[in-house]
Each structure stands twice: as structure tokens, then as C-alpha cells.
């Protein structure tokens, strides 16, 4: 069964390779993609069952033991994230079938499926990597694929956003690789476990090098995960992509940098006291900046998707802030929020996609009374908005509860205050949208349009249902994540 750890990435990779071979015509690419994601979800579910009991899988690729070969490590943390990411992916792929096909020409459509699968493979690879350089390789896979699914759309703003993202992510890759080489220079190891044992000695002889390496890694992954003020690429990239692509990018892809930093910190850097002192403070300051300024920017947006994109900057801030208090409860909240935000933001972008697909309206001001035409879409949008604000019985509330409780437990009421303030800000930019959507009067009475076809609606509503279930019965998930968080913090 241990092979599942490597199959988790190999399945989506193979699917991506299959698309140009077998998925060349008609909707075969879609079928390949859907089948692959289903298999991946099953694989992740099996891993979750295995690791949920508290045992992590350490897989040596090619039977080479860690210092020489590559180790893949799947614990409850990565299994849970992989499972929820695949679940979101399932909805997005199912949704894409109708939305994307008429926007892209056949060649681009083919590669769209392939790139989506590559993105998934990269993300799952990042979440299960236990080797610095392997982490870098998978980071590059997902970054390139992420740029790719932005630029498949043959429009100037998408191309420009993709190029901006690509260049900045090349800078990030440079920082990460330089950080890795600095760490290798002073320790001679790449494997996490061996680095953790070698790092204290390296810190003793060359403390500045280690700190510089950590700073470079934090910058690189911060850039990839849109940590303020390195978020400048995100609004363009996420708003100009196709809606399902935005859902994946905003809901999942930005989290990869966070996951990489979590794991690096938990399994390597926490061995060095100086880093443990410096890094969380640094991250916390930037996270607070992102939460405040991201919210302010979100309030001033007129375009629905740009508003959602800025909201992602805010939510990334939440996750970093909760992480930086280094408390198991808050970390549980942070991990849960990664998942919750993936579900909610995925759903929000898909709902925005439905609205754009049916009415062509993108501006928030044009959405007056849209709920009358598309009530189900609007329900999804409402659930998403409530989850983002953290209304009880939505999953956003559960993660907020843990983040605030953890911050208070760690003696940081200020962090708790910032989280709550930012929730209020979320209400300020989400609620007008919801109110206008349900109760506003449309400027021009549009002809009665039917709701989007069921094949596009059910993925969106499915995500909403999962969010609500997670909000109403969070106990099993919270228990698993609580253990994972304790494990990550070495407690």
C-alpha cells in the first residue's frame, strides 16, 4: 500500500501525458482528465484512511534510503490536503467541460486538460515532498502549469498576466534555488530529516548563511503564495484566467507555497532556534499587512473576479498569521482554512464563472438582482460569502474559531483581533454583493434566462454542500488535523 504515496503524483502525471496521446479529439481530453482526477481522489482517500490513524508513510523512491535517494513523505497533513484538493479539482474539471470548450480552440483545449492535471500533480508533489530539491522541481511544475492555464486563454490581458506571473515566479524560483544551495553548502544534505540533524551544527558555524537561506526560501515561497507585499501578480493573474482556472489557482495553487513553508519549517527549520524566533515574526507582520491592505483593495474593486482575487490575498494572510503563532490549535485552524478557502474560493470563482457564462456580466455593479435570474448560483455565492466572513455553521467559522482560540492560547490577543477585524472587512465587501444580488433592482430587466445547465451547476453546489457539511460536523476532520498539527509542531 505504500506505493500509493508515489502514485498520488504519478497518476495525475500519467493522465497529463495521456491527453496528447489519447485525448486529441472531441471530449476525450475531458474524459481522460475526469478519470485521472477520480483515480487521484480515490488514491488520496486511501492515503487519508491509512495516515488518519496517525502513521505517516515514508516512501523511498527507487529503494534508495534518504541521504542518497529521494524520500516522499505522506502524513495526515499532506493526505488530507491532497484529498481535499482532489475533491475541489473534481468539481472544477466537471464544471470545465461546458464552460471552457467554447472559449478555446481545439489545440489549446487539449493542452488545457493536460496543464490542469500537471498543476494537480505539481501541487500533490509539493505537499508530499521530503527533499529540498524534489520540492523545487515540483514547485516548478506547478508554477509553469499555473502560468499555462492562465495563458491558454487567447486574450491580451491573460497573456500579459501570465507573463508577469511567469517572470515573477522565475524570480521566486531563483530565490528558492539559491536558498537551497546555501543550505546545501553549509550542511551537505537535501533530505528533510537529515537536514534537521545537520542544521544546528551549520547554524553554529555559519548562522548568517542559514538565516539568509531561510529569508530567500520565505521570499520565494511567499512570492508564489502571494504573501503581501509580494502579491502584485495575483489579482491580474487570477482575474484574467478562465473561471475554472481561477478557481484552481486561487483556491489551491497559492496554497502550495504555504504548504511548502509549513513543512520546511516543521521538519527542518524548527531545529534552529534563531530561525524559530525570526521567521514567524517576519511572516506575521507581512500577513497582517496582507489582511488589511488586501481587504482595502478588495473593497475598491469593481470587477467581481478581481475582488475575489484580492480576497485571496487576505485569506493567505489569515493562514500565515495563524501559522506564525506556532500553536497547535491555531495551526489546526490554519490547515483547516487552507481547505476551507479552497472549497469556498473554488465555489465563488465557479459561481462567478456561471454568471459570466450565462449573462456576460463581470462588474459588481451589474449584478443587481441576479439572484432572481439565477437563484441557485446566487445561493452558492451566498454560502461562499458567509463562509468567507465566518458565519456559524459554515466551514469558515470552524477555522476562525481555531485560529482565534489558538492565538489567545498562545497569548497573542492582537493576532486574534486582526483576524476578527479582517473578517469584518470581508463582510464589508461580500455582503453588498449578496444583498445586491438578491434584492437589487436590475438596471435593465433582462429576459428571463434559465439557470446554467445542471452539468455546470452541480459541481458548484457540491462544493457548497461539502463546505456546509464541514461547517456542521467538523469533529472528525478537526480531530485528524489536530493530531497532524501537533505532529508538525513536534509535540
Amino acid at each position, binding site marked *: 500500500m505504500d506505493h500509493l504515496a508515489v502514485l498520488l503524483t504519478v497518476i495525475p502525471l500519467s493522465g497529463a501525458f495521456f491527453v496528447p496521446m489519447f485525448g486529441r479529439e472531441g471530449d476525450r481530453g475531458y474524459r481522460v482528465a475526469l478519470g485521472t482526477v477520480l483515480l487521484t481522489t480515490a488514491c488520496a482517500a486511501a492515503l487519508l484512511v491509512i495516515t488518519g490513524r496517525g502513521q505517516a508513510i515514508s516512501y523511498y523512491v527507487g529503494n534508495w534510503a534518504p541521504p542518497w535517494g*529521494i524520500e516522499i513523505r505522506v502524513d495526515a497533513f499532506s493526505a488530507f490536503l491532497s484529498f481535499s484538493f482532489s475533491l475541489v479539482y473534481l468539481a472544477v474539471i466537471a464544471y470545465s467541460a461546458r464552460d471552457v470548450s467554447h472559449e478555446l480552440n481545439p489545440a489549446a483545449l487539449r493542452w488545457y486538460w493536460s496543464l490542469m492535471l*500537471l498543476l494537480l500533480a505539481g501541487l500533490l508533489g509539493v505537499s508530499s515532498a521530503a527533499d529540498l530539491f524534489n520540492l523545487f522541481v515540483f514547485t516548478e511544475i506547478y508554477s509553469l502549469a499555473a502560468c499555462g492555464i492562465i495563458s491558454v486563454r487567447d486574450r491580451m490581458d491573460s497573456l500579459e498576466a501570465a507573463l508577469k506571473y511567469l517572470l515573477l515566479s522565475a524570480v521566486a524560483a531563483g530565490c528558492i534555488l539559491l536558498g537551497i544551495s546555501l543550505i546545501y553548502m553549509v550542511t551537505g544534505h537535501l533530505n528533510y530529516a537529515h537536514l534537521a540533524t545537520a542544521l544546528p551544527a551549520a547554524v553554529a558555524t555559519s548562522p548568517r548563511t542559514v538565516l539568509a537561506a531561510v529569508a530567500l526560501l520565505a521570499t520565494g515561497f511567499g512570492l508564489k503564495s502571494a504573501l503581501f507585499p509580494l502579491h502584485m501578480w495575483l489579482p491580474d493573474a487570477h482575474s484574467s484566467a478562465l473561471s475554472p482556472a481561477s478557481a484552481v489557482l486561487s483556491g489551491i495553487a497559492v496554497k502550495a507555497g504555504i504548504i511548502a513553508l509549513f513543512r520546511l519549517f516543521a521538519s527542518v527549520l524548527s531545529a534552529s532556534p534563531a530561525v524559530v524566533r525570526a521567521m514567524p515574526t517576519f511572516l506575521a507582520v507581512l500577513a497582517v499587512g496582507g489582511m488589511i491592505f488586501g481587504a482595502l483593495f478588495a473593497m475598491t474593486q469593481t470587477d467581481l473576479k478581481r475582488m475575489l482575487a484580492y480576497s485571496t490575498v487576505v485569506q493567505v494572510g489569515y493562514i500565515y498569521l495563524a501559522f506564525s503563532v506556532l500553536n497547535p490549535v491555531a495551526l489546526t485552524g490554519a490547515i483547516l482554512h487552507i481547505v476551507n478557502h479552497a472549497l469556498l474560493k473554488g465555489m465563488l470563482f465557479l459561481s462567478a464563472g456561471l454568471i459570466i457564462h450565462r449573462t456576460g456580466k463581470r462588474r459588481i455593479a451589474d449584478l443587481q438582482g441576479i439572484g432572481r435570474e439565477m437563484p441557485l448560483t446566487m445561493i452558492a455565492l451566498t454560502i461562499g460569502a458567509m463562509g468567507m466572513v465566518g458565519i456559524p455553521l459554515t466551514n469558515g467559522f470552524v477555522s476562525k474559531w481555531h485560529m482565534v482560540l489558538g492565538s489567545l492560547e498562545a497569548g497573542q490577543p492582537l493576532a486574534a483581533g486582526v483576524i476578527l477585524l479582517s473578517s469584518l472587512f470581508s463582510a464589508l465587501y461580500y455582503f453588498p454583493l449578496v444583498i445586491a444580488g438578491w434584492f437589487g433592482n436590475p438596471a435593465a430587466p433582462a429576459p428571463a434566462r434559465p439557470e446554467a445547465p445542471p452539468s455546470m451547476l452541480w459541481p458548484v453546489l457540491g462544493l457548497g454542500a461539502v463546505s456546509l457539511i464541514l461547517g456542521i460536523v467538523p469533529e472528525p476532520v478537526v480531530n485528524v488535523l489536530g493530531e497532524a498539527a501537533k505532529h508538525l509542531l513536534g509535540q
Partner: protein
Amino acid sequence: MRHLPALLLVVAIAYVLALTLTEAPAFGGLDVPARNEVMRFYLDEELDQAGIPNTVTAIIFDYRAYDTMGEATVLFTAVGAAAAVLAGHAGKLVARPMAATDDVILRIVSRMVIPFVQVFGIYVVVYGHLSPGGGFAGGTILGGSMALYLFVFGPKRTARKIPPAWGEIMEGAAAFWYVLVGLGGVLLGANFLANAAAGVPLGVQGQLFSGGAIWLIGLGVGVKVAATIVNLLVHLAGET
């Protein structure tokens, strides 16, 4: 306006890295931390374990073959992304669309040279485990030969020789070949991408067919890289 912040950023990074350098291990020393047991293991044990003299190839295709699979995937991703971007691009605004050259000397010389280049490329691919080279280098040479063909005879004729669909199929197939070799390890009862540990015969050291799965992977990567270069160039040149 972007000059000042950029300069400040660069100066800041420069300062941090300069500080780092003052305490970095001296360049070229034999007792630096990086020359530790991991490196010695590779150098001492590799010949027995992987059975090929080229340690770098052994690391790329055996010890860290998983990274290399990722690397091949990055190439695949780049081709896919580029192909998607350039799909339907007709080379209309590029100053001069690429066309076949009329130069007779160029055509005849290329006809003569291309086979030799290709043979050399194949040599570099299949002897990558014995001498400097390997799938990536050899694949690039192979791809280079086809690039020469493209430049001289134009995209139209190249497309007739290698239909774009073939290029893409080859791209996927060669990448999947890597996965298949990896799964072979699993089928043989060992881990993914296992070589000697899965009982793949390593062959006689120094012979062409030695190193077990390394040779198979190298072959696949060679095809993959050649296909990548052709695909990229065909797309960049504009579809006919």
C-alpha cells in the same frame, strides 16, 4: 519609477549575500561541509550499486530519478503551455514569416550534415552512462539536427516530415515511458523507479547494455528532449 525600488532591493539582497559569503566555506576546499558522507557514498558505492562509471548519470537516472521525472515533466509542461499559447498562431505579424531558404549550398550541406549530427546525438544518448552525455544532451543534439532542417527547409516541409500531431504524441509517449519504467520497479516487487533493487540485471560494467533501467530511462529522455525541441520550434515558427 521602478528603478529606485529595484535598486534598493538588489542592494539589500547584495548586502545579505555578501555577509553570507564572509562566513561561507572557502571555495575549492576539500573539507567543506558539502563534501560529506552523501557525496562519498555516491562516488564510492555507485559503481557497485548502479553499475555505470558516470556518477552524474547514475544520480540523475537512478538515485534521484524521481527528480528527473519531474524535470521531464517540466519540459512537457513548457511544451504544452507554449503549444496552447501559440495554437492557431499564424506568424502573421512577425516581421518575416519563416520560409524555406533558397540557398543551394545551405541545403546541400545540411542534407549531408544532418545524418551525422543525428548519429552523434544517438551515440550521446545511448552512451550517456559510460561517458559524458546522456539523454538530455543527446536529445538536444537530435533536436538540433531537426532544428537545422526546419531552418533550412521551412516549417511546411518539416510538418510534412514530422506531422505536428506526431510530435505531441511522441512528447506524451516518451514522458509516459518514464512512468512505465518506474512502474516496472513496482511490478518487480520493489519501489517506484527501482533499478538494481528490483532485480533489473545491471549487465557488465562498461558495456553498452549496462546499468539496467538507467539505459531505458536514458533512451526515453533522449526521445523526449528531441521531441520537445522540435515541438517548441515548430510552434514558435508558426503553424503552417
